[in-house]
């Protein structure tokens, strides 16, 4: 009963929180808006130059007869082993892919290891063997390395940094600021496999699944794609922050509006179910073996024909287009015919309550 003691409706209350700019929180590593803010707050003012300011995952450096393409990536995945891969395969593929999305041919990697006291040599051996296999698969060589050991508890098993070097001809111009009105958007397969595989492998969900990570080197797929569709404007691998965040970055870089059609976005049934149970949007979940491709619409069919023939591109699909509007945002046409904004990931992805 509320009749004799009606609550007050006059005091709307909302405290102003501390912005998270005084200390690092997990959201700063999410790959979304907070990561972007951190880079803009801490790194960009001090390191700004034309290579970094381009906002790509790689830098292209002019050299005689072409361009060197360089990229670096840290790998801190937990658990170290997950269905479909491990931190070693991830460390090679992640950097190979960051080079490959410039259109360059990845050639060499350096590898830096931070090892935790107590890590078994056998585990390390398995991971290094997995790196060797991934190098063989992608045709790159590890040409320099470093190891450091930290006290137990100072890191989570091991962390790996890889830096990659590739080469491309000068006239190949594929980067995030290159999407144009009328272009089409492709994805090379099902979304959210890697993120959900790692999450299930953590064993925190009381949920077992068959979901396999898609972690793969994509340089071979890029070669096949560019042969069939040489006019590709943008390539990017939608890793942390997922497809939605990657497309938002491209929309900002190219100052364009991207429109996706939800029903065409490939997703496996187990991943979809898992995401729904946990309250995750699969469009924000990480991929490690997929490409977003933006290209002139007249090259879509030849691109798809080539992608479908490659083992890593069998489920490729046309999922959207770049509109004529100059408005940096991503829109999603929903399954039932509505339209909504697809924003960048805001902070850490959190499961829902009920």
């Amino acid at each position, binding site marked *: *009963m*509320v*009749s004799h*003691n*009606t*609550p*007050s*409706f006059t*005091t*709307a*209350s*909302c*405290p*102003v*929180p*501390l*912005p*998270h700019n005084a*200390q*690092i*929180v*997990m*959201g700063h590593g999410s790959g979304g*808006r*907070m990561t972007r*803010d951190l880079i803009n707050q801490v790194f960009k003012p001090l390191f700004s130059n034309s290579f970094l300011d381009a906002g790509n995952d790689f830098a292209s450096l002019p050299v005689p007869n072409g361009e060197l393409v360089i990229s670096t990536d840290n790998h801190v995945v937990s658990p170290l082993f997950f269905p479909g891969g491990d931190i070693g395969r991830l460390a090679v593929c992640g950097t190979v892919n960051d080079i490959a999305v410039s259109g360059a041919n990845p050639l060499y990697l350096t590898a830096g290891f931070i090892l935790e006291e107590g890590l078994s040599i056998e585990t390390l051996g398995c991971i290094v063997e997995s790196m060797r296999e991934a190098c063989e698969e992608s045709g790159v060589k590890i040409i320099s390395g470093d190891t450091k050991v930290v006290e137990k508890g100072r890191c989570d098993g091991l962390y790996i940094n890889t830096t990659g070097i590739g080469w491309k001809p000068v006239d190949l111009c594929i980067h995030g600021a290159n999407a144009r009105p009328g272009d089409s958007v492709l994805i090379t397969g099902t979304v959210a496999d890697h993120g959900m595989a790692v999450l299930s492998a953590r064993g*925190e*969900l*009381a949920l077992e699944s068959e979901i396999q990570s898609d972690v793969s080197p994509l340089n071979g797929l890029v070669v096949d794609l560019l042969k069939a569709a040489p006019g590709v404007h943008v390539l990017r691998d939608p890793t942390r922050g997922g497809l939605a965040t990657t497309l938002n970055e491209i929309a900002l870089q190219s100052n364009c509006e991207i429109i996706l059609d939800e029903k065409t976005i490939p997703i496996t049934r187990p991943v979809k179910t898992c995401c729904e149970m*946990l*309250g995750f949007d699969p469009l924000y979940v990480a991929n490690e073996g997929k490409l977003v491709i933006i290209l002139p619409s007249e090259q879509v069919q030849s691109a798809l024909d080539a992608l479908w023939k490659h083992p890593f591109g069998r489920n490729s699909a046309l999922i959207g287009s770049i509109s004529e509007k100059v408005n940096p*945002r991503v*829109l999603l*046409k*929903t*399954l*039932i*015919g*509505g*339209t*909504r*904004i697809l*924003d960048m990931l*805001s*902070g*850490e992805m*959190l*499961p*829902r*309550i*009920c």
Partner: protein
Amino acid sequence: MSLSLDDYRDAKLVRNALMELRSVMTRPWVIMEICGGQTHAIMQYGLDQLLPKELELVHGPGCPVCVTPLELVDKAIAIASRPEVIFCSFGDMLRVPGSNEDLFSVRAKTGNVRVVYSPLDAVKIAQENPGKEVVFFAIGFETTAPVNAASVIQAKNLGLKNYSILVSQVCVPPAMEAILSSPDNRVQGFLAAGHVCSVMGYWEYHPIAAKYQIPIVITGFEPLDLVRGITQCIKQLEKSQHFVENAYERVVTEKGNLPAQQMIERIYAPVDRNWRGIGSIPLSGWGLRSEYNDFNAETCFDIASIVVHESEVCIAGEILRGIKKPNQCPAFRVLCDPTRPLGAPMVSSEGACSAYYRYSVNSGN
């Protein structure tokens, strides 16, 4: 013929249901969907753009994160900051601003805050860490109450002395009454929260429908569920009827989940609760029964003296009561976004402001 889950999102079936809705609706109506999950589904599918313009949906207080009072967030932060504590919470609560900081900040400083998916995981953490005090932040509506209660029973059965819960458990029917008895109420019909009713049934709602002469339709979360729930509600309104109807029959029964209700009854007793943005509502939630005091974090830790300072920056209260829409707030998108939330409705993945921010094409930039 039974429908598959995909059918409930099928464009054609939804279109047909919308046509039926248009055919029964002759004038404007204001309906409140109680549950934040429904608000999100509406925005996520862009259903708001497909509904008749004369139909106004207002978004209810059914987001557990949004209505958890600041005082309890501050208490949670105080407990979580103690060195002997491992504080466990559903993920969404970490981002809710307390008076000075949030649980994300406490986690960054101490490493003692853990996101769990179920309170039973927190019980496991208590088992594995006998030298630590493990506290679970037991927030939520009737949906989370049974499993939160089960965690206390499990801890007791295991003989654990280092597990307690900080309770902020609230119930839907008293909030509906509070909204209806408010002088500025605009709500003419309710879509009741399907998941809450899956636990509690809907026997509690008959007296409300009768007393306030308002239709209450138990509604699910898929686009087709929502359109059907709305249509049934509008049909009643058009005929000046007011009764409780179940449009979520595949999940909800009149009596609900009796073992779950017994679990709640065993551990919890009704108490007055503060609702953020609404105020105190008598007997609107549950607290631990006194025989479970050993598992009550409010008695285990000295936090009674925590004083709360609430500022009045945003219009969360009016939004939670359905008086205003998120995009009518002057702070929306300008000062307030999910990384810098001014109010809880922007924080939670079920909050109305975050739904508008994330999904709405027409919410202004």
